[in-house]
């Protein structure tokens, strides 16, 4: 191990993390008055880990995996989702979203592919929440810490959920957890993609790799290293600045809407209760 690696140790004990997260899911779901969970499955590492955790925590019969393909969804997305669902024996429903998406954009033919990607993410969110009502379950979040910090997700889309078991794990750490949980090799080996359009990959779009940015984020966010210290340890100044800006600019996505304060007690400012209030 290089000395730099010792400073940026992203290792986790996957068994310990699994012990915590399976209890987290069981308990937080029960407190909300439910026994079931609903997960949107994409065939990627994040949603796969969440389904594996949920199946282990609640039993596969209490987990509904939803596949919500758009017409551009890749064959890998479809087959990897299938392999997760089949290997776990969780419940499954396929709800394609192409019809309503295409119907909507027929009216806005000049919309950018980013608008299309965001609309798909939000369409899936509404399907998840509607299906969760039918299944009497909670929607589980699948955004990891890397994405949440970088703002690499759609607000009220894939970032929406009731509870999120993996939001404090970097992408790099999710691979360790995935291997422990037995997520199929094909899913762990493939290049991360939101499958937002044909050929899209996260790392192309972001302009850096998760392996690199996770190390930077761990020092910057968790250990609170300052800019000159980060540069001195070998990170390019441009990368440090770019990532710091992404973290700051996207903070709005991680917060509830800003409320104009008028009274003496305003939501989330001086009206402060835990979400688990009274449970």
């Amino acid at each position: 191990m290089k000395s730099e690696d010792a400073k940026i140790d992203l290792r986790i004990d996957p068994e310990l993390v699994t012990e915590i997260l399976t209890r987290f899911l069981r308990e937080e779901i029960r407190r909300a008055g439910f026994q079931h969970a609903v997960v949107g499955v994409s065939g990627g590492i994040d949603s796969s880990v969440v389904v594996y955790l949920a199946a282990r925590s609640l039993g596969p019969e209490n987990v509904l995996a939803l596949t919500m393909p758009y017409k551009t969804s890749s064959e890998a997305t479809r087959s990897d989702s299938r392999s997760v669902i089949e290997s776990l024996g969780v419940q499954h429903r396929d709800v394609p979203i192409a019809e309503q998406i295409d119907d909507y954009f027929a009216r806005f033919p000049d919309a950018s592919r980013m608008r299309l990607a965001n609309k798909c993410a939000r369409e899936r969110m509404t399907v998840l929440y509607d299906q969760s009502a039918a299944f009497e379950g909670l929607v589980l979040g699948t955004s990891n810490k890397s994405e949440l910090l970088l703002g690499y997700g759609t607000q009220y889309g894939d970032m929406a959920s009731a509870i999120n078991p993996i939001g404090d794990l970097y992408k790099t750490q999710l691979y360790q957890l995935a291997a422990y949980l037995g997520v199929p090799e094909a899913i762990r080996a493939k290049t991360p993609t939101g499958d937002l359009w044909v050929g899209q990959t996260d790392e192309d779009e972001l302009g850096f790799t998760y392996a690199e940015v996770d190390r930077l984020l761990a020092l910057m966010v968790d250990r609170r290293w300052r800019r000159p210290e980060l540069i001195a340890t070998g990170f390019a100044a441009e990368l440090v600045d770019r990532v710091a800006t992404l973290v700051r600019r996207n903070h709005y996505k991680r917060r509830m809407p800003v409320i104009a304060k008028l009274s003496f007690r305003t939501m989330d400012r001086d009206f402060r209760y835990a979400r688990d209030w009274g449970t």
Partner: protein
Amino acid sequence: MTPAPSSAETSTGPRGPLRVAMAQIAPRLGDREWNFRLHLDQIRAARAADADLVVFPELSLTGYFLRDMVPDVAIRADGPEIEELLAAAGRTAVVVGFVEESPRHRFYNAALYAEGGRVVHVHRKVYLPTYGLFDEQRYFAAGDRIRAFDTAGFGRVGILICEDFWHLSAAAIMQAEEVDVLLCVANSPARGVQGPKIRTAETYDHLARTFAQLLGAVVIVVNRVGFEDGLCFWGGSKATGPDGRTIAEAPMLDAALAIAEFDTAELRRQRLIAPLARDERLLLTIEELQRIKRLRYEV
């Protein structure tokens, strides 16, 4: 200069084998009635297990992340809720965590020790963490004393609450108080998962072992389990002997009523091997602290 006999010297030491039940529970956040019934169940189970003392975690009657609920769940140490618990405990001594409202309407993160149906001591948490994920000073008033007390069965006992235990001065005061048993009631959330143990649990282990050996006392840490808004309380309650060895421990993460039985003769043996508290130069410490006080506060 030979000090006058401390109250520790004049009080009766603990006698015989003692059984302490560590009630590692998962309270419901702000549901005092439900938690109260849970306490009654645990007390019943502890009595059935022949425990001399049952120790509940910090804020055991209320849960931890109370925020604006603090005034809604507050009670008084001499109120009917505590009275009912003590009646249920009978001859078993009890340590309970609660939000205490003072007559001047200050709210304290408090823990009481009671035996024979009588409250012997109330400790109000002195160190209220207000950093990182913690926000206690916003809601609680800080206690202003760290004192031990004499008990019928356990000799001289001290109570610290969670963050108090992370302050060397609190342990030093307890050493000067010559405690036989140091109780730490905690609501410690898990942080650090590189394993094999949760990092915060590791630190508690170090502190408990160190303090047990330095004080020549039994150290009992009782931590809760369960989740509040995604925070995982890790449990792992543990009794450590004066030699630093583990007497008994509860599981990590899961609720349990773990019994620690210890022979108080071990206190004598260990103090013969390492009479650290006896040799403590208390006056020297006091004089040095007074010098520091003059320098830092009186200039």
